[in-house]
């Protein structure tokens, strides 16, 4: 398979700097305080956030801030080959810990001492860019749950084919070329996660990094639109049950 052919097309008809279709659904599900379903192409992730609430275990309470707990569950049917992953699967735990460390600095945990915020991530379909989808979904779910954040965390996967950077990789592409996932905070422009499991030449890294930051900003716009739409809908519904502007301000 040619990742990027001579005429600039990728195997799924996209060009070099085109991201896959993003669909965001922020509808409320079950008892969770905030939920988000995000779809990047054929990768689909459902995130629910519970909390902040009292820590279930005494040992998990931290006296001056909230404890962030991330659990990732990969559905057996999510990939082509049906495969059950144990809770203790190393790769899953590693991903959970990467997500945890990303969000510990973004959530204003000092506002909720001695409490716990649970982030449950359910991977429903996977086709590349898993970590990217998890982080973007978690940002959205946290916002829906009303937890104060410093900034959005916008993640994007990118790779290098020959000398050309490529954005938002599918599984096929991920298997073929060196790639990394990067999470950036659009307002401050800082980056608080870069994950890379393959070898990438240091000379290529600079260009790739710049492109990935640009892509992060594009994803941020998309996420912002979804959040605004959700907020507008909430406001409209509140009005229908008799809440006025005044109530909101109070």
């Amino acid at each position, binding site marked *: 398979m040619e990742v990027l052919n001579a005429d600039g097309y990728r195997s799924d008809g996209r060009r070099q700097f085109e991201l896959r279709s993003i669909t965001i659904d922020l509808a409320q599900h079950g008892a969770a305080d905030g939920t988000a379903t995000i779809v990047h192409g054929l990768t689909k992730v459902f995130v629910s956030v519970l909390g902040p609430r009292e820590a279930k275990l005494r040992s998990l309470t931290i006296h001056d801030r909230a404890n962030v707990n991330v659990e990732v569950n990969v559905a057996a049917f999510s990939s082509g080959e049906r495969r059950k992953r144990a809770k203790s699967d190393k790769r899953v735990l590693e991903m959970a810990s990467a997500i945890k460390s990303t969000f510990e600095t973004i959530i204003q945990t000092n506002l909720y001492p001695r409490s716990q915020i649970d982030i449950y991530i359910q991977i429903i379909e996977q086709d590349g860019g898993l970590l990217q989808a998890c982080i973007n979904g978690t940002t959205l779910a946290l916002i829906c749950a009303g937890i104060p954040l410093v900034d959005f965390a916008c993640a994007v996967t990118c790779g290098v084919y020959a000398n050309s950077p490529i*954005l938002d990789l599918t599984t096929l592409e991920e298997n073929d070329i060196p790639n990394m996932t990067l999470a950036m905070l659009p307002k401050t422009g800082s980056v608080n996660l870069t994950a890379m499991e393959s070898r990438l030449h240091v000379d290529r890294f600079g260009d790739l990094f710049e492109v990935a930051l640009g892509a992060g900003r594009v994803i941020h716009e998309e996420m912002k639109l979804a959040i605004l739409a959700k907020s507008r809908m909430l406001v409209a519904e509140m009005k229908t049950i008799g809440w006025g502007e005044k109530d909101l301000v109070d």
Partner: protein
Amino acid sequence: MPEITITIRKRPPEEAIITQRKFFKKTARGKVIKVLRERYLRDDVACGIKNCSLCSGFDGMDSKRTMLPFAGDISHAAFPEGHYVLPDTNIFLSQMDLLESSIFTPSIILLQTVIEEVRHRSLPLYNRLKALTKSDEKRIWVFYNEYRSETAVVREENETPNDRNDRGIRTAAAWYTSHLSLARKQLRGKNKKAPKVLLITEDAANRRKAEAQGISTMSIRQYVEKMSEDDKKPQLLDLLTAVDEDEIEPTRASAAATGTKASLYSEYLPQAMLLAGIKSGNLHQGHFNANQYNYLEGEVSTPAFNKPVLLQGRENMNRAVHGDIVVVEVFSESEWSAPADEVVDQDTTLKHDDAESGDEKDEYETEDNVLSKERGLLAKGKAKLKVKEKQPTGKVVGVIKRNWRAYVCHIDSTSLTSSNPSSLSLQSVFATPVSRFLPRIRLRTRQAPTLLGQKILVTVDRWEPTSRYPEGHFVRALGKAESKEAEQESLLLEFEVPYRPFGRAVLDCLPKEGDSWVVPPKDSDSKIWEGREDLRNLLICSIDPPNCQDIDDALHARPLPNGNVEAGVHIADVSHFVLADTSMDHEAAARGTTVYLVDKRIDMLPGLLGTNLCSLRPFVERLAFSAIWEMTPEAEVVNVRFTKSVIASKAAFTYEEAQLRKDDPHMQDELTHSIRLLNSLAQKLKAGRMAAGALNLASPEVKIQLDSSESSDPIDVEQKEMRETNSLVEEFMLLANISVAKKIQETFPQTSVLRRHMPPPSSNFERLQDILLKRRGMKLDVSSSGALAASLDQCVDPEEPAFNTLVRIMATRCMLSAEYFCSGSVSRDTFGHYGLASPIYTHFTSPIRRYADVLAHRQLAAAIGYASLHGSLHSKAYVERVLNVVNHRHRMAQMAGRASVEFYVGLALKSRNEREKALVVEEAFVIRTFRNGLGVFVSKLGLEGLVMFKRDTQFDPENYTITIPSGPGKGDTTIAVFDKVFVKIEVEKDKNTQRGRVKMTLVHPVDSSGL
């Protein structure tokens, strides 16, 4: 980094039905996996027609590439209003030669569906297709129909993939038609008739469906036949592949003709059975190697047996052609056999075979004749077998991969039914390939009479079980046989040397200044001087063969104050001009090496670089990559450093000039001193190398004396002389290569470009050892390269100085060839170079003419921190891929060079025969004995030949002797391997094929002309 726009390709969820594709895949382990893929449909896929008002502004429409003309192609008689050709997949699969021909130039729309289907069906064809789309001569536009929203199709239920693709192609053709008329509408008033889009397909059902949709279609034959009458048309018609007409055109099928024909070969087993058989070990897979002495025999080397599997007779070779990857079934051991010890020539055996086949009755008679004759030959061989020589014997039961290419052939004049030069009737003729490894090819042509006596290129199309010979078609004529141009081109084609002139994209990579490029002054702020050492004041000189234009190396040496010596090798800095991942780099990688023929050089790099800007010519400043050693006067290396540099060579010597200068006691200038210094070091280096067990091998190298550079008529052949200065240069190049190999291997343990020479398996020497022992009582110790070198030194005949060289030549033939490899892909203990007895080796010293050296230069530059390494050279897969190509090209280039020398030796012999009015008689050594002939080697001409006897002789294969009656009343003469004989050499033209070949007859000890 240029400004880029990052966008999200939005895909509405309701589109999923056409954008998502689900299929099941079975893995090698038998697991079934469901795969879901999506594609993004877009409206900005460009149609590729120049000035198209609807597509302007789309990516790829900025006319940097070849685009299709707005008015279409108007040269075709059937389409005065202009047309575009849209061929389907089968056209590319079966008619690639036609499409590649430089006289077939319609505007072609190539669909993505077609490209992908071609890739699935045949990788070599896919690669040819890719090269075709990139060539400047062709007007081909690749249309990504699967990505354009209007033309993307989805496979329907119960639809085969084939039908789906056909439908996709028709949809695209219909879209183009409407797109063209839409684009016209916008341009009011002008040229109302839009050009037509013509779907070309061989599938009659597909044509019917297309016509129902209002698409104009034709078969490829119709298309060519309806072209305007001119001289190109018959050529194009010949290029059409022989297609099985009844398969394509059911209406014209003549069942009677096909039904009665008997199969000559057994059918191949189905692919699944072959694979299962290989897996279980019942069947064996390998390359089929035909025997050049006996066309009824071939061999397949398989890992399961230490001896290759022997295939005897036509039925057992079962339509395998030299180079194919075949599957063989090995017979039970009682049926094993030994190779025949006889020369069987297909031209003489099959002289009367008829090319017209299929309908006449008497064809079967001749067929029977041939078969019985061949059986006789086989039986004769079998009768005298001995158990000792038996080797696994089997038959071909299937072909994994055909490695057919275009072959250079001659038309066999006897196979012509009508030789009237104006006859344009279609006739079947035999084409005899130049290579002795190949069977004759049957082809149908209208140009047969005009092609007689020419070299032509023929492609094999298929080989049916019912046909004794493979069927092919004519590609193009190369010119009159024996004319230098035709011979040269046929050599290049036969050895797959890419010889076309460099394309525009490649030439664009050259420095803009062209000829007038110079090293900028040092004080200018040019980047060239960054990190470069100024070695312009050193006394550097180059030593090369006479008339050498691409000087890649130069040397210097000077004493140091501490008593040591500084020696330097300076190599042309090609990697400064040939940057990674440019068109020039790709071209050089594909060419792999410069090919030297006797009267022509096929360059790897454009001439401007090779013979000027990179060539280290004297008295001009040139960029170089230098390796500088500090050595003790005993030639022990104290340290080595590498640096990019600027040098100014002080002199360019030939080997002879340098030698004379060194030996002349009156010359006392510094340059001469440094040559003497280099020479003394080189002698010590060589002594050290020999002590370590390096081999001193010989290959028959001769030099062709050309009359003058214009006429290039050879006048004589002489053996190459070796001077001390040859070895001087060689020693320092070896040293440089070894030093560089160590350095790059240290820095890039996974991807460094190295060269190795594997030790030969001792079984390779068995035959030679046996001959030496039996004939001369000499022993050859092959346990190590050192032991071999020592025992080769012992093989001397005091009366015959050439004997030692002969043994060395024969020993060289037993060895494996050296190869490039990527250090990460083989285990560390196999890095060694057997012939040089060096643990590690690479090629660094000739980057102008070898591509591996360019890679080594890049890696060394990165290793010393001069430049960063291009990403591709970090990838093991990339390096492996490039080196595979380079290895192949290198082998082919060597063979082409040798064949070219052979051709000129033939010409020289002919002119000598004419001048001296008598046949040349030369001294020769017997190197092989056959039951009906001798293999001899004429060392003076570097020529190997066969002496054939028509009469039976007494042949003793145990002792490698042959006894022939020397004439009435004189008793018998016994000739053995290594005996010195005299042979008469003449160049004889084969009457049928006009192919010149060397014929040798024995003069002494017996005159064999009557035998």
